[in-house]
Structures are given as C-alpha cells and as structure tokens.
C-alpha cells in the first residue's frame, strides 16, 4: 500500500510538473508521427511481452487481450 501511495505521488508530481498546453488539431503533426505513438512498433512490443511473460511473474499493464501460453 505504501508503494502504491508513493507511485501515485510520483505520477501526480510528473503530471503537475508538466503544464498542459492546448494543442490544436493543426498542431498535432508531431503527435501523429508513428515514432510518437505510445506503441510505436506493435510487433516489437508483442515479442517483448511474450518473452517476459515467459520469464517473469508479472505481465500486462499496457493493454488487455492478446492471449496466454504455457511457455517455459
């Protein structure tokens, strides 16, 4: 629980440190670039998630779905 609170505080600080600036649609050219997407290379992220799912006890966080496996 303490770590959860610490994490929440960290996120709040990050968000408050970034002043939100309105970005008009015609100013979203950078945000539209593929390299600026949250998942810029879906296959790379898929392969990473599959690898670490097989080797660690934690998984997920970025999205839902995708399926499981009996990986070793």
């Amino acid at each position, binding site marked *: 629980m303490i770590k*959860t609170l610490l994490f929440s505080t960290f996120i709040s600080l990050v968000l408050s440190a970034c002043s939100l600036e309105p970005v008009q649609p015609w100013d*979203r050219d950078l945000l*539209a670039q593929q*390299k600026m997407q949250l998942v810029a290379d879906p296959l790379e992220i898929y392969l990473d998630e599959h690898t*670490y799912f097989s080797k*660690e006890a934690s998984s997920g966080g970025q999205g*839902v*779905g995708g399926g499981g496996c009996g990986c070793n």
Partner: protein
Amino acid sequence: MQLKKKRQGPRNIRHQLAAATCGLLAGSSHASSLIASGDNWKIDSALLIYAEKDRVSLAEGVLSISKEIDDDEFINARIVTDVLTGSSPNGAVPSSTAQTFTNPSGNSTYTEAANSTPLNHTFKDLRNALNVEWDTPLSRSLRGTLGGNISREYDYLSTGISASLAQDINQRHTTLTVGLSVNKDTWDPVGGVPVGFAVMPTYPAKKALDGANADKTVKEILLGVTQIINRQTLMQINYSRGQGSGYLTDPYKILSVLENDGSGNLRSTNPYIYENRPDQRTYQSLYWKGVHQFPNENVLNLSYRYFWDDWGIQSHTVDLRYRFDFDGGHYLQPHLRYYQQGSADFYRQTLTDSEETTLSYASADYRLGEFVTQTIGLKYGFAFKNGAEINFRAEMITQKGKDRRADAVGLLQNQQLFPDNEAYLLQGGLSLDSDMLIKYIMRFFK
C-alpha cells in the same frame, strides 16, 4: 513509419488527425499504426531468434496485416508461429552427486550432472497463434475495439476475447479507456496433470494423476487515461486488475525434498515432489508511459510499471527507448529495461521431509522467486522513400536471483540455488503495404 497512401486530400489529413487522437488508445490497440487505406493492406512482419545460454532456444515469426475496411474502421490480423527447443529448469536444486529424474511422460529418465542446475532437456514445442481485432468509431469521439485470439501448443490451448472503449474528451486532448478480456486456457500436459505435492516416481512407476487436462480462466480489466501534454509530449496512466482461477500450477515443475537433519542431503526415498500453487490469483498493476520528442526530433519513450498480486509478488519495471533519427531515413534506438521482482509467499527452493504434509502450497519455479532482469539492446531502422521500413535489433537479457537462505542448508550452501540466466535476442522486421509487395514480386519474376 509512414506508408505510401493511395488517396490524397482531406481524408489523409483526417487520418493524420485520427492517428494523433486514436493513437491515445490503450496499448493493446494497434489503431495508431493502421494507415493502410483503399485497396491497400499494411503488412508488418518480424522474425525473432531468442537463445538462452545452455537452455531454451526459440524462433518466432510474426505476420500482421491491417486494412481500413470503411471510413476510419480497421481490421487487423496477427499470425504467430514459434518453435522452441532446449532445456528448462525443473525446479530441483543442484546436488554434489548426479541426479536422475523421470521424464514428464513417465516413459524414460534423464540425468543431471553433479553441481549443475537440474534442467528438463525434453522441451520441444511448436506454437501457432492468431489474433484478430476490429477497431471502429462508434461516434465522433468514441471508438470501440473487439478482439479474439487463439493459441495452440501441443500441450496448451488458449482462447480469448477482448473489448475496449476509448472516449475522447477535452477537445481530444484526453482519452479515457476501459478494456476487458477473458481467456480460457487448457493444459494438456505430457503424462497428464500430476496431483499437487505428489511424488515424482522413479521410472517405470507412474505418477499420481489429477486427470489428463486442466483448465484455467483469466479475466482482466483495464482503466486508462491518456493525455496530450503539449505538442511534443503525451502520457498514459493505466490501472489493470486481473484474476486467474483454476489450474495455475506448472505441471512440469518439481521441488527437492531434503532430510530433516540440516545436512542438505536429499531425503533417501522419494526426494522429488510436484509443485502445488493456489487455484486463485488476483493481480493488479499501475502503468505510466511518457513519449516526448525533442527539438532535434529524437524521441524518448519511457515507462514504469508497479505490479502486485495476492501471492505476495511485487515488481517494478522501468523501460526506456530513445530513438536517434539521422538523415536519409536511418535511425538508432537503444533500449534499456530493468525489472525487479519479489518472491511469492509460497516460493521455496527446497522442502524438508514431511513438510509437504503441513504446507498448503509450494513452488520452486524460479519465475516466482526474487530476482532482477536487466536488458540492454540496440535497434537500427531504415525507412525507404516509399514508406517501407526494415529494422534489426540485438539485445542481451540477464536474470540474476537470490537464494532463499532458509532453504540453502548444509551442503546446499556450496551450491547456487537460483538458476541465473543469460539470453540473447535477435530480431529483423519488415513493414510495407500490399501494393509494394505485389510490385516486388512482379519485379522478381520478370
């Protein structure tokens, strides 16, 4: 990457704007990268080679095809095939003498040399998986995604469905996301499902079985907020909660059982038993990601995840990718990942004689132990003028764990109980659209 678009004009501007906002969907959605339109399909492919030192090797091919089937409405199919071979730790601890184990089939044995981590050398697997997603606008500010997946190994079947909604608010500066998924999996292990804590019999005796197969269900929910911070920055925060129920044990993992005298010697009869885990698990995570483009056009992609569950596991994951763009379409992207995990409450590296009669659960699976994973890698990519892209990456992954002192008694103090691991990953990728592919094929056969 940007692919050549067949249509020019207002619709493409709308795609760019849609990409900027729809890209704010939770990570499972591929909407942000789907820019194929008209009769064109977008094709992404990758081949991964993953090799652990003295253990498992894997080759995995992925093909993803996407198409805009109506205005701003997309379908995506991802096909995966992987082949795995090699050895995996079976859960037993090293010993100063050679150890002989019965194969999961019960039809033969394998022997591990003295002072070596016992590995099951019989792993061979072929997995085929299909994932299909349909992503569609439901109103001017609401998108919906439906997905289905099936994955088949010779001893494991996984089927699942997922759905998510993404609502843009605040003049499309903010996207609220909710996602749900349900997975139904079935183990069909070689030799059947062993009874938890049952003895691994000495060949040719047969292990006690709890049936030929076993099911588990995993349900997940995700709540997310994505925010445009400024023209160069966006952030995402997700909360996920999942619940697994059913057979959550690994049917191939065992535990070493020691004598009670503190010597560290295996007990004289039936020194190995099958692990046994709870049949319920609830896990949660908080996930933050930020993407920022610097004035020199380099892009930082940084994420942090805090994960915890009711098995007592907690973990912290930091993932950093930094993309350097160069003239002519070249880029380099270093990748660093740090993962630190605490152990499950029932993680044990050894048990002592008769302890299995008093414990409810125990597992020596190293993946439930206390360890750190570190990854360092580099990716090189090149974007052609027509929008196609090739990329390559190489990474090294090291996994180092802690021995559980209470389990390392007597002779075992001279052994390394946690099986540290080192792995290498090589990946090549190619992205193009169907028009380009047809042209290349025609040119090849001319």
